[in-house]
């Protein structure tokens, strides 16, 4: 019973779509805006940006986050930079080229019109962030500096040392602080959205748990914006913060929002390798390092000599060899897969069987140690603290790690999900990156969605009218709150023998082995069976100490894991259905002779959007056809 989804892309030439759409959009007059309540969940670049921008316009905004303050949203951890087609470097960049690079980088599985709009807005983002006081790196002449990121042949990445995400987020936080002071935004820190309330077919409220008191609370609104990030912690070990979770998105999915392309996950090529089972996370080493670092493995399998003892002619700089046009700066999916190929063949760094070298010897010789320290010093320090090895002297050991999820809730061109009045922004939606995201594009999308797109599309939705008053005393709120209470009571009442971490670790292992960098039909079927069994065991044998009525981190983690145990299965199903390789989704059955991803455009040039059917039932598949009018679809090559 699948249907074809309508992305509601405006007509006209691609370069004019957004402007035309803005003209067609309805507006809410300034004096009327305060009458509309908008809930924004999340305070990262997308959520915090949206809340601030909506506040500036005069809407009555309520903004929620799970952290103790909005300044800690996970956008803070992005290191390398943010893309914009400013062409400040005079190297041939343009809106068209950023658009082209992004669609190609996503392996022709993103929605053309959305990506074009993103490219157009990229320049306004840099200007706005600069105006907010974000201290971007500058040249001696006073202009902004740029560097290169993977998958492109221009320098369009703006940065603030190795802390670009932090600085952009603090910009958002400052704008948000100003609106909170002005009274347009009311902030709810340490509040976790646990479910969505739908009244008369429209998203009208949320149920939150106050993470300090444990109290369940109801909030109503005229429109709701989810900007709650991705789901990489389904792998247990990832570069994400330990509290990142999919619960708000997944609970909305269960209430009717379709989930698109869950199998599109980004395994980032350069993280510090896993060193033991005790670990709680993996630490990213920024993609910017590949501007100057060279990736290599020993030529001989099983060569465990210290890297300083391996002479130049016994090293294989495999990215430079296989992809001479882009060299070490191939896109993430390609660099990650290549690292796996080498280490699977027994060629790896000396301390860990699953790692390759990222070597700065040549860069230090060419630029001097001071310049390298100025560019990457904080990353080198982080590495040294974790591995206890000096990367100025010995090449870094790196290995791919789950990092970002391109899949997410399905949205149309207006960022509206399949539930009316529920908008989804940033990593939580699916639309802009296709099957692989290029480096420095996540911050760009977060800012574009938050600052620029959400205020327009939500305004248009509110201008259309037809929204009656809704009170939290409505039965719909009581019923959803009861569901949430029942669920958390159940978690506490299992009183089994295995901890939440135990189960999460096991889920992560299955996901990494079977739904990770390489997937195949048998493995995916096996994963589905294993996850089902694990989910049953979880609800029979988990132990969650304490009670619901106060601060209880274990209970929070248990609720989030319960959702990952459902989402993980859907990821495997989606990967099983997609009988092709594209971007980060690599099916071993579908590859070219030289081991590259082999797409099947005839059968899979689509978005797979899944509809929840009830516990224990298979989800229904809906499709959006991807149509490329302004880009010639080609085999992706970086050679």
């Amino acid at each position, binding site marked *: 019973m699948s249907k074809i989804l309508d992305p509601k892309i405006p007509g006209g030439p691609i370069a004019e779509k957004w402007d035309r759409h803005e003209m067609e959009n309805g507006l809410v007059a300034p004096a009327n805006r305060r009458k509309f309540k908008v809930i924004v969940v999340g305070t990262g670049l997308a959520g915090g940006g949206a809340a601030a921008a909506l506040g500036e316009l005069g809407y009555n905004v309520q903004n929620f986050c799970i952290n103790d303050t909005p300044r800690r949203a996970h956008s803070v951890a992005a290191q390398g930079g943010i893309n914009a087609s400013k062409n400040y470097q005079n190297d041939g960049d343009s809106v068209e080229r950023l658009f082209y690079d992004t669609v190609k980088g996503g392996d022709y599985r993103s929605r053309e019109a959305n990506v074009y709009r993103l490219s157009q807005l990229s320049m306004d983002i840099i200007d706005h962030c600069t*105006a907010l006081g974000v201290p971007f790196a500058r040249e001696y002449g006073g202009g902004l500096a740029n560097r290169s990121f993977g998958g492109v042949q221009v320098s369009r990445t703006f940065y*603030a040392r190795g802390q670009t995400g932090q600085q952009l987020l603090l910009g958002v936080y400052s704008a948000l602080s100003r609106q909170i002071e002005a009274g347009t935004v009311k*902030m709810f820190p340490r509040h976790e959205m646990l479910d969505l309330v739908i009244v008369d077919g429209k998203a009208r409220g949320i149920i939150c748990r106050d993470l*300090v008191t444990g109290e369940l609370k109801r909030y109503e609104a005229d429109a709701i914006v989810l900007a709650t990030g991705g789901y990489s912690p389904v792998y247990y070990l990832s570069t994400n913060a*330990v509290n990142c979770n999919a619960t708000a998105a997944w609970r909305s999915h269960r209430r009717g929002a379709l989930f698109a392309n869950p199998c599109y996950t980004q395994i980032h090529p350069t993280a510090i390798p896993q060193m033991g089972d005790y670990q709680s996370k993996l630490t990213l080493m920024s993609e910017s390092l590949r501007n100057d670092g060279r990736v290599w493995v020993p030529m001989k399998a099983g060569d465990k000599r210290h890297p300083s003892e391996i002479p130049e002619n016994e090293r294989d700089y495999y990215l430079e060899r296989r992809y001479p046009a882009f060299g070490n700066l191939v896109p993430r999916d390609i660099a990650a897969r290549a690292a796996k190929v080498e280490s699977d063949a027994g060629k790896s760094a000396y301390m860990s069987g699953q790692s390759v070298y990222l070597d700065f010897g040549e860069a230090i010789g060419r630029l001097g140690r001071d310049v390298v320290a100025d560019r990457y010093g904080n990353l080198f320090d982080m590495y040294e603290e974790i591995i206890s090895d000096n990367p100025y002297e010995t090449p870094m050991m790196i290995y791919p790690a789950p990092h970002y999820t391109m899949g997410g809730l399905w949205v149309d061109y207006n960022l509206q999900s399949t539930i009316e009045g529920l908008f989804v922004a940033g990593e939580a939606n699916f639309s802009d990156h296709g099957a692989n995201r290029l480096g420095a594009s996540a911050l760009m999308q977060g800012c574009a969605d938050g600052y620029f797109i959400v205020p327009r599309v939500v305004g248009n939705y509110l201008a259309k009218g037809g929204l009656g008053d809704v009170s939290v005393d409505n039965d719909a709120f009581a019923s959803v709150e009861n569901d949430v209470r029942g669920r958390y009571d159940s978690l506490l009442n299992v009183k089994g023998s295995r901890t939440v971490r135990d189960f999460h670790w096991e889920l992560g292992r299955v996901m990494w082995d079977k739904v990770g960098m390489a997937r195949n039909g048998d493995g995916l079927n096996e994963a589905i069976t294993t996850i089902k069994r694990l989910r049953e065991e979880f609800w029979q044998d988990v132990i969650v*100490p304490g009670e619901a009525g*106060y601060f209880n981190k274990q209970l929070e983690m248990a609720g989030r894991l319960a959702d990952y145990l459902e989402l993980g299965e859907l990821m495997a199903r989606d990967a099983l259905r997609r009988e092709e390789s594209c971007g980060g989704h690599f099916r071993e059955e579908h590859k070219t002779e030289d081991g590259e991803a082999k797409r099947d455009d005839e059968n899979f040039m689509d978005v797979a959007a899944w509809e929840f059917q009830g516990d224990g039932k298979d989800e229904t598949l809906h499709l959006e056809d991807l149509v490329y009018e302004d880009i010639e679809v080609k085999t992706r090559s970086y050679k």
Partner: protein
Amino acid sequence: MSDAMTIHLKIWRQDCGQKDGRFVDYTVENVLVEMSFLEMLDLLNEQLARKGERPVEFDSDCREGICGTCGLVIQGIAHGPNSATTTCEVRMRHFSDGEIITVEPFRAKPFPLITDLVVDRESFDRIQRKGGYVSVNVGSAQDSNALPISKYDADKAMDAASCIGCGACVASCPNASASLFVSAKISQLSYLPQGAPERGKRALAMVAQMDAEGFGNCSNHGECEAVCPKEISIENIARMRREFLKGALGGK
């Protein structure tokens, strides 16, 4: 993989809503030197959870030193024995087998304790809201390169902007002063032309809010700078005083 250590902990425990707490002794075995300090606490919490006991609550998120969520006083020092690191970056290799480690929350009157090692730092947010921003709306900015900023000023602004808002400066100050935190934001915006129109008002309002929250005055002990995981310099405090004075004298 190295030999496992045994670590003895004295941890501050305080139930939600209770006024008083106490130190409780725990022993954690099989601690590896590669573990982070928080992973060692995770291990303890796994043991407690299996026994059905309430785990030790502490805040953490990114676990790579950038979000500012974590913050423990370890052996009497905010963020532990190493300089320029957050609690989550501390590794167990800096401790020895059999060592007794005291673990406390960031204590200060404007940081009310929620439970165990978790404190409420919303007072920091309330200070920021008084002026830690440039008043510019989305869509009204000029081209970034139309506003040249010297590399020196941009770098100085960035040094100050590195503050992660963890509160270690407050926890280690004998006066519980928030001067380093507040001065980092005032300083960042004072180096940039974008911040100029509101500089006087900003300094006055943020300092007034800092006082209203109950943070103490700075008396130049320098403990804040010593524990700051991002090495924010106390030069910023001198700069904040200048900004405050200029504002108070009716400058811009």
